[in-house]
């Protein structure tokens, strides 16, 4: 939704830990997944320009994912943090 550039804000009915307590995103980088029903990513940038990418594995098996050409292994049904870098 953020990648549409048309969302001012959102609220969540349930408390969700996005794992962002140590990272303050100010921008979203557009992403594209070749297999969006299997894996996808949220890529963010903080005020200092550091990047953090969260890769989610929607399947119940470990998954090898190429992130900008670099292979990452994402555990089953988990979110993998790549960065901040």
């Amino acid at each position, binding site marked *: 939704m953020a990648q549409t550039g048309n969302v001012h804000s*959102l609220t969540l*009915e349930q408390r969700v830990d996005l794992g962002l307590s140590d990272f303050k995103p100010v921008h979203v980088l557009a*992403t594209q997944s070749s297999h969006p029903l299997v894996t996808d990513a949220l890529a963010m940038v903080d005020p200092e320009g550091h990047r953090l990418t969260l890769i989610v594995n929607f399947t119940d098996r470990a998954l090898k994912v190429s992130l900008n050409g670099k292979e990452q292994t994402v555990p089953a049904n988990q979110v993998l943090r790549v960065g901040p870098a």
Partner: protein
Amino acid sequence: METKSVLELRAGPLTMTFDASNAFIRHIRWGGQELVRAIYGAVRDHNWATIPSAITNLKTELGNDSFRITFDVTCCEREIDYFWRGSIRGDPSGKVTYVFDGEARSNFQRNRIGLCVLHPVEDCAGRRCAIEHVDGSREIGTFPRTIWPEQPFFDIRAIEYSQVQIRCEGETFEMEDQRNYGDASFKTYSTPQRLPKPAPVSVGQRVRHEVSVTLTEHPRIIVADRPKFSFPNIGRRIDIDLSRPDFAKALEHIAEPLHIAFTYSSEDELKKLAEAVKRIKPNIAVWLVYHKNETCTSTQSLLAARKALGAGAEFAGGTREWFVDWNTQRPPKDYPGMLAYAATPHIHQPDFTTMIENIAGLAHGPESAKAFSDNPVVISPITLSGPNLP
């Protein structure tokens, strides 16, 4: 070996045809999906005329899941004499490589020489794609849904969409929307239009292009290099019930900026809320204003709330339910606030798979809202556990 004019080919799971009359690879398909409309070589003169090609020395090696084709092409007309050798290879892994290796045999003026790739409009228009530029940077974009007057993408080295990656080596490529000329395709071509045309070609001058089409069986994620959008504020929402005499208690002792949601039905309720805000001074980021008798908050109702509550926070009006309410009761262009609606990935089915499938669908609300409003949306609340209408 001489063969019939159109060959049926297979490269692993990919199928396609080769037209020996013009050296076109056509309709690269994966199952029922057409990934690439065509790959072909062209020599075009200073008037954009395509020089007729004569194909000779065709050799084919056709396997059950692979192939190799080589041929010679001469393009001769008036002062133009151009020769290129083509080779096309299909691998069992699902990779197709088309090489154009050409050499001028005369001096002439050209607008374009080399390989072109056509992308089918039916499958590509409106589809997201990832572009790798010639400098290695990455861009995420979208094939235009309606006919685009300019080039959608420039300085292309590779394009990815669906589960296919197309690499274009040998020159700088860019894309045009061929629907401008009545064709049902986008075309990726070499020699950017910004360069001077026609360009002189001298005897012996060579062009070598290589286009590869690779089916991406293992998941690939491309992240654009540059920040494009602000990260939305993830707010905390509090709903207050103005019919309760103690409604103001919910506003007390809160430090973090809040999204305050309320439904009102009278000016008197607004007045009481304004008095409570003046007394408590809560930290308010956004007022989410609903009216008891309206599916979506009207301009008049939102203006009344703004007048009562004053400046200092942003205002959104809308529906406690779904995007459909805004889409069927679209706001005027001068609507005095942001557009609020709720969202959940499983209104119709509460299982995990449905939720994952519908993640992509959630982006269509804010995208579609651009068509009828210049104001951004506030999505509140997002409910993950299933519909729970307030």
